[in-house]
């Protein structure tokens, strides 16, 4: 039994079956951006049940994600998905939408609810309101700094879950601009967003999933684990919904080992770990908003770990 939880996100059964989850404690199933994402667990309820069983068979906590921006016509399917999740013994559902939170609380009270990053928890008072709707864990909005997160932790009776590594969600749309290129590229949905696409301009870069926009750089908190642990955080996400199984396995191995060392009082990071993270971060590394700066900036002792595009903090340039 770990003193921490390391989890990730997997969108479909194919990806789940191809992934080595040794270093994870739990997995959120489903793509939160698009109903048409290839064999999305949230639409393929047979796959979802099988996915939950696979996770349980491996001794992992099995969570189910929900859509970040559901309209009225999503809700009947969401209800069926929640029903299937309860029946298959999901440990919790993650909600980003307060309407879905309300449905889960009223119609599926036995299902614990984790509140996701798109639910816009910026304040301790906001978390308190949602605790009244049955929420038991919170991912604060990604825009918050560690100091602001600490303000929530100090008064919130429920644990917070933090993005530890990976592409940070930046936005969600109802429109997939990639569909405009189906004919020109000769690639159809749902294969379009499987192409590892990056929007770039100068030293700016964002990863595109069509309806989902993610950071181009990988948020990396490897050298800040001692602070996170000292501030009582124990639930961590490595965001891999748009990554390949190698990324998922190797990055988790780095963090699992580093967390164990940090808990034992050793916060040092070996060179091989940096090399692994650098190899997977094609655009570079950043800290998101954790240090109160632009999300693409990096603050730390390892500027050489940043990656290929110019990433020196603008304040220092």
């Amino acid at each position: 039994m770990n003193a921490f939880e390391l989890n990730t996100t997997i969108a479909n059964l194919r990806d789940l079956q191809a992934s080595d989850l040794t270093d994870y404690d739990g997995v959120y199933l489903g793509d939160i951006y698009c109903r048409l994402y290839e064999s999305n667990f949230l639409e393929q309820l047979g796959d979802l049940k099988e996915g939950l069983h696979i996770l349980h068979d491996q001794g992992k906590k099995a969570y189910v994600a929900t859509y970040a921006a559901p309209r009225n016509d999503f809700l009947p399917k969401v209800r069926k998905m929640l029903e299937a999740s309860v029946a298959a013994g999901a440990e919790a559902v993650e909600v980003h939408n307060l309407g879905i939170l309300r449905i889960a609380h009223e119609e599926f009270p036995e299902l614990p609810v984790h509140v996701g990053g798109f639910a816009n928890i910026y304040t301790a008072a906001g978390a308190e309101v949602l605790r009244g709707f049955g929420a038991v864990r919170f991912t604060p909005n990604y825009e918050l700094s560690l100091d602001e997160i600490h303000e929530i932790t100090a008064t919130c009776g429920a644990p917070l879950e933090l993005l530890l590594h990976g592409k940070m969600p930046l936005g969600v749309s109802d429109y997939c601009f990639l569909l405009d290129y189906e004919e020109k590229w000769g690639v159809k949905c749902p294969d379009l967003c499987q192409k590892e696409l990056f929007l770039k301009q100068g030293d700016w870069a964002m990863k595109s999933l069509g309806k989902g926009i993610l950071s181009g750089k990988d948020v990396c908190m490897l050298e800040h684990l001692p602070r996170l642990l000292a501030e009582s955080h124990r639930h961590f996400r490595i965001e891999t919904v748009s990554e390949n199984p190698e990324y998922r396995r190797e990055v988790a191995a780095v963090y699992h080992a580093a967390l164990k060392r940090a808990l034992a009082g050793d916060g040092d990071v070996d060179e091989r770990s940096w090399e692994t993270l650098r190899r997977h971060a094609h655009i570079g590394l950043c800290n998101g908003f954790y240090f109160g700066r632009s999300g693409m900036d990096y603050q730390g002792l390892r500027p050489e770990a940043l990656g290929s595009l110019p990433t020196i903090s603008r304040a220092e340039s």
Partner: protein
Amino acid sequence: MVELLAPAGNLPMVEGAVANGANAIYVGPRGWSRRRDQYEMSDEDVRAAIKIAHAGGAKLRVAFNTNMQSHEIAPMLEKMERFVSWGVDGAIMTDIGAIAEVHQRFPHLTIHASIGANILNNEDVRFYRSIGVSQVVADTKLTLRELASRKEQIDVGIEILIHANKCYTYLGKCWMSPYHRLERTTDSFGKDLFKGSPNRGGLDYRVCMESWELYSGEKKWENSVALKNDAFFLLEDIPHLIKLKVECLKVQGREYAVPLVERIVRFYRDLIDACLASPDADTFDIAPWRSRLASIEMERDSARSDGTRQLLMEARQPLPAI
């Protein structure tokens, strides 16, 4: 009777909007609303705005629609208490914790859930109703059918943006701008400002409107991808929205020049009055209004593209050293 709600980024705009037929005005106290601080107001100006609005028979709403920090809720409540004592008619808000606190402290104050709350489905509306919200701004992406369903099923006031931007992403669920540039400062009253983060009350650099190149690996697939972000004026929908009995038609644009906002407000005042006088929404002749709107649209587009160019240049500026 449908209400025409107008923006005001300064006192002359309050006067102009009232004089041109707005039923209600909204303003933002400095540091607490979703706009650049130059389009927000000091507390004394908010007080003056309340007086101007009330003297002209209009209501005055105050926008506290940032996603604030935990420790900012107490000073927000103090400020709200001041505005309530001055007779403010309602608060436009986003943060659910702040909404719940305001409702508890001022149970008779009308709370409007801001566009930033990104209320997308009927269950969302029910959630916000349960924490004290009585009117919600509809997301710009919702269809008339979705609005009709909301109106039919839930006892809630509906506000429709009739002049606003339709972003690529859902508003309130996007932090592309601060990802690229976030400048945190503190004003002379100790209020933290977040230049670059619209959700937190700072300006939006509109980075989505950059001309993006699209890559997969080393291969460039496209030279110029635009993530759609269009400003719009609703026109054809107005008679149908009035027929649907939405409570409020809202014009955004605190950042525009006073004469332009006056023209927009006058246009919609006249259009709403004509619709109300018309026996049937389905047969209302919108054609003459289209040509009148065209010149306003041209002026707005010019101002907006200048603004976007300036913002994208600002977004590339180095941050001041800490």
